């Protein structure tokens, strides 16, 4: 088309105008777009525009074998893939009526917590960058890389590990792994002061983040907010404690929470959670060597593996919120239906639209990053 033929859409007589943020924009998280109606720099209304990452996951999974699906489930949420594998495996185990051996359950717990540490470190950087601070981004990503090195060590993959299968985990831990993990935890704890000075008590950040995108508890519940975003409103709800799975009922940890429900509370909850995860990991390091046994309950030949008829709903607490898999089997070699209940679709669509209303244009990016939604999981 020749440029002369391109006509801008004109709105009626008003001061309002429309702008797009995304899909290719530094202030947006991933491939996602947000359409804003503005009056001056105050947002009149916002509309989420998802679907850029849609791959038809739930349909794809109906066409693949039970074991093949393990390769695609982690791809639903890229920054925090481990809970996806675990939740899917747990759902399939429940249908089959088997249980992973106790050692495998401990290893899975360790994997989940490590993944949470990596995801939170990543979020700090992203959130800080939306307020114009780029150093936390460099620190967070570099420290996250150390965690990814450990992942590579014990699963073979940096980001996508595909380490779980229904019935357990695939490999034993490499020798000296727990020592390495313990060293890493020491290092992360030693960084606490640096991070506090740089980010969490830094006035440049605090002034911008306080009061930005505040949610009350009842609003949060109405909008189906879960995870750290809900705990930032003062409600200590955590699947790990309220509906324990794996070995969380044997572990000691607190549920951090904050009162105000704004962007600052949300990042503080994540900061505290990071250190709670370190506390959990320390207990795992202590207990794991004394837990002996198999790491996998045998399953039939996976290429001709019919899971018996039934359905299951398995949920875990991912770093973004409550994550659940609803799996239905009709007795065939492929799932009949898989549904993913992801936290991000609630956070990035309805909550973001709700919070953007009345916010200032420069805060929209911060609100989005403070909710820590992950677009691939919105679209699936």
């Amino acid at each position, binding site marked *: 088309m020749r*440029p002369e033929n391109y006509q801008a859409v004109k709105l009626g007589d008003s001061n309002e105008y429309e702008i797009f943020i995304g899909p290719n924009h530094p202030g947006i998280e991933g*491939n996602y777009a947000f359409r804003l109606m503005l009056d001056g720099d105050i947002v009149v209304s916002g509309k989420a525009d998802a679907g850029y990452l849609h791959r038809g996951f739930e349909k*794809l999974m109906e066409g693949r074998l039970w074991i093949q699906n393990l390769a695609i489930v982690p791809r639903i949420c890229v920054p925090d893939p481990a809970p996806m594998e675990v939740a899917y495996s747990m759902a399939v185990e429940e249908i089959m009526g088997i249980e992973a051996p106790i050692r495998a359950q401990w290893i899975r717990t360790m994997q989940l917590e490590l993944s949470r540490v990596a995801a939170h470190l990543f979020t700090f950087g992203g959130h800080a960058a939306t307020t114009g601070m780029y150093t936390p981004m460099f620190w967070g990503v570099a420290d996250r890389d150390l965690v990814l090195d450990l992942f590579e060590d014990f699963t073979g993959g940096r980001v996508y590990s595909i380490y779980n299968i229904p019935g357990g985990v695939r490999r034993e831990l490499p020798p000296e792994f727990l020592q390495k993990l313990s060293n890493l935890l020491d290092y992360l704890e030693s960084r606490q002061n640096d991070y506090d000075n740089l980010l969490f008590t830094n006035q440049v950040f605090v002034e911008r983040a306080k009061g930005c995108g505040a949610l009350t508890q009842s609003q949060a519940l109405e909008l189906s907010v879960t995870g750290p975003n809900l705990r930032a409103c003062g409600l200590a709800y955590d699947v790990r404690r309220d509906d324990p799975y794996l070995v969380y009922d044997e572990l000691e940890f607190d549920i951090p929470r904050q009162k105000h429900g704004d962007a600052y509370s949300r990042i503080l909850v994540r900061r505290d959670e990071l250190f709670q995860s370190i506390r959990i990991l320390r207990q795992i390091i202590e207990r794991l060597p004394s837990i002996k046994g198999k790491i996998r309950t045998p399953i039939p030949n996976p290429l001709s593996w019919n899971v018996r008829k039934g359905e299951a709903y398995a949920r875990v607490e991912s770093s973004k919120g409550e994550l659940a898999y609803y799996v239905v089997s009709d007795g065939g070699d492929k799932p009949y239906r898989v549904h993913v209940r992801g936290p991000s679709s609630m956070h990035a669509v309805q909550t973001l639209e709700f919070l953007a209303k009345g916010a200032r244009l420069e805060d929209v990016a911060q609100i989005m990053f403070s909710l820590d939604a992950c677009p691939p999981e919105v679209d699936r």
Partner: protein
Amino acid sequence: MKKELKIKQKERTNPLAHVFDDFIRFCQSKSLFMLHYCTGCGAIELPPAMTSRFDMERLGIQPMVTPRQADILLITGYVSIKTLKRVILTYEQMQSPKYVIGICSCTVNGGMYWQSYATAKKLNEYMPVDVYIAGCMPRPEAVMAGLQRLKDNIRNDKKEHKGSAWKDYFKRYDYYLGNQQALFGEDWQTPTDIIAEAKLYGLETEETYGKHTKLLEKHQTPLLPQEMRIK
């Protein structure tokens, strides 16, 4: 009446022309601005590659936020059809010379999602791709190696067959447009006038035109005088 723009390419008579060309290619390869369109999961390996651990700035490559100032378009993973439209708009807005890097197996042949109804499978059917970095997902080292390969290609592009893939878009516009129309419908239009640009660069060939570019003209709204549009 439309008046055809006639631009004559200057004859190159300077005996030192190739020295200048070499020098320009050298400079180009040392300073590249990269627009990364985070189309898929591969984008998660870019922050490590950009920040202190792997640090792609030492190769002279920096992220850039707008397509008009960028040299490299990095496609990081599967492209769904909705995204592909935006990718093409972005690509056409970029100024030549421009380079495309496809990260991840999904851009090569569909990868994991070969049977998905929502993704476009091969990126090079829709735009010329300079370098592919395969892997699911490629590690930061692989990303760095791919960028290095692109730099070498640009620098050693004497015969114009490796670092000049962007010219192909003008030379065979009909082919690329045909594939785009097959996906988006035959009234697919972009705001950039590729044919006029091809003429401007002196890159039009027989394959620039064809039955698909005819469709483009057919669905185009007729040109109106400027004054009538302003109201």
